[in-house]
C-alpha cells in the first residue's frame, strides 16, 4: 500500500491526542449501568483496520504511551496492549480484507475484550492484586457491550478523518466507475 506517511502521521497524531483527551476528560466520567465506554482500543483497532498493520502498530504504541503518561500509570502497559491490537487488526485487513458492515462492531468488541483481559494479565504479572469477582466480570462484559454499540460510529469517524490521505481502495474505485456510467465494461458492448 502506497501511503502518504507525512499527512497520515499528522492526522494520526491529532486523532490520538483527541481520543486521549476525550476519553480522560469526558467518556470515563459517564457511566451507564455502572460501566463506561473505552474509546482507546476502538480507535486503535479502527486505525489498524483502515491503514494496515504497520501504521496500526505504530499508532497503537504511541496512543498507549500517551495514555500512560497522561494518566500517570505504569509506562509501557497500555503501549504493549494497544500495539498488539493495532497490529492484529491491521493484519486482519491485509490477510482477509473483511468487507461486511458488521466488521467494525465485531473487531471493536474483540479489541475491547483483548484490552481488558490484557490489562488484567499485565496487572497480575506486575504483582498488583487483581480484583477478581462478579463486579469485575460485569465491568468487563459491560464495557465490551458498550464499546460494541459505539464501534461502528467510531470507525466511521476515524475513516472519515483518514480517507483523504489513503490511497483509493480499488474496490471503491470500481464501484464508483459502475455507478457513474462511463467506465463500466458493460458500456463498451
Amino acid at each position, binding site marked *: 500500500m502506497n501511503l502518504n506517511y507525512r499527512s497520515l502521521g499528522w492526522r494520526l497524531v491529532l486523532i490520538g491526542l483527541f481520543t486521549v483527551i476525550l*476519553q480522560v476528560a469526558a467518556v470515563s466520567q459517564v457511566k451507564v449501568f455502572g460501566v463506561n465506554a473505552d474509546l482507546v482500543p476502538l480507535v486503535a483497532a479502527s486505525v489498524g483496520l483502515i491503514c494496515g498493520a504497520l501504521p496500526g502498530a505504530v499508532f497503537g504504541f504511541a496512543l498507549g504511551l500517551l495514555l500512560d503518561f497522561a494518566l500517570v500509570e505504569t509506562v509501557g502497559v497500555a503501549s504493549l496492549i494497544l500495539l498488539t491490537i493495532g497490529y492484529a487488526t491491521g493484519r486482519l485487513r491485509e490477510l482477509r480484507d473483511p468487507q461486511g458492515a458488521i466488521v467494525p462492531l465485531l473487531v471493536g468488541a474483540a479489541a475491547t475484550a483483548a484490552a481488558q483481559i490484557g490489562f488484567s494479565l499485565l496487572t497480575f504479572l506486575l504483582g498488583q492484586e487483581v480484583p477478581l469477582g462478579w463486579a469485575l466480570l460485569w465491568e468487563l462484559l459491560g464495557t465490551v457491550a458498550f464499546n460494541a454499540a459505539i464501534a461502528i460510529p467510531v470507525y466511521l469517524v476515524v475513516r472519515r478523518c483518514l480517507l483523504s490521505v489513503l490511497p483509493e481502495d480499488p474496490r471503491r474505485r470500481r464501484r464508483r466507475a459502475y455507478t457513474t456510467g462511463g467506465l463500466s465494461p458493460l458500456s463498451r458492448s
Partner: protein
Amino acid sequence: MYDRAVRRRRLTLAALLALSLLLLTAYFGESSGGVLHSAQRGVFGVFAPIQDGASRVLKPGRDLFGWFGDTIDAKGRVGELERSNRNLRARAIAGSEAERVNGQLRQLLNLDNAGGLAAAKPVTARVIGQSPTVWYASVTINEGSNRGVKVGNPVINGDGLVGQVSTVTGDAAVVTLISDGELAVPARVSVGGAQGVAQTGAGGPEDLRLKFIARRFRLDPGATVVTAGTVSNSPGLESLYPPGIPIGSVTRVEDPETDAQKIYLRTFADLRKLEIVQVLTSSINGNRR
C-alpha cells in the same frame, strides 16, 4: 519489494514490542525520582491544563449523557429506595426523642470537625479526569503544588474520605481513590471504637473491607466507620489522615466475632461521581485525637 515490506513490518513490530517491554521494566524498576517518572510528571504537567480546558468544554455533553445514564440507573433503584424509605420512616419515629439530645451533641461534634478540618488548610479542587480502567482507581484534580498540595495529602468531599494524593505537579495532581487496593486507611468504628484498616479486598474495587478487627467487637450493618488518625505516640508513625473523617458504613459481616470475620463497607462518598473535592494540605498535632 514484497520481501522488503514484510521484513520492515516485522522489524518494526519487534522493535516496538521490545521498546514497550523495556519501558515497562525500566519504569517498574526505578524509584519515583527516576527518569521515566520525572518525564511522566513533565508530560502530565503539560497535559493537565489541556485536560482541564477539555473537561470544562465537554461538561455539558458529559452532563447530558450522565443524565441518561442516571435515569436508567434510577429506574432500577426505585423499588430499593421505596423499601429503604419505609425502614427509615419507622426509624425516624423511634428516633425522634433521641434526635433532641443528638442535636445538641451534633452541634458540638460539627464544631470540632469544622474547626479541625479548617486548620488542616483544605484546598478545594475540581476533578478534571478519571482513569478509564477498573485497575487504576484514580482521578486527576486541577490543583497542585502551587497551592500547597503534596504527595500523601488526604482528599475528601462533602460525604467523606475520597483518597490520597499520589502524584503532584504545579497545577494538577493525581488522587488514588480509597477503592484502590494499594491504599490502606487506619479506621475505627465510631460507636464502640473498634480499630482496624479500611482497604479494598481482592473481590473488586467496590469491595471495601474493614480488616484486623478484634473478634471481641461485634459490628452490625449500618455502623459508621471513620478515620482513626494517629494512634501511636511514637514520632514517625503518624497517620496521613486526620481522625474523624467519615469513610463509610458497614453493609454486612461474615463470620462475626471470629478471627476470620469479614466486614464489608460502602463508602459514603460516591467515587464514581466526584466533581468537587478538598485536599487537606496540613496535619494538626500529627493527626492525633
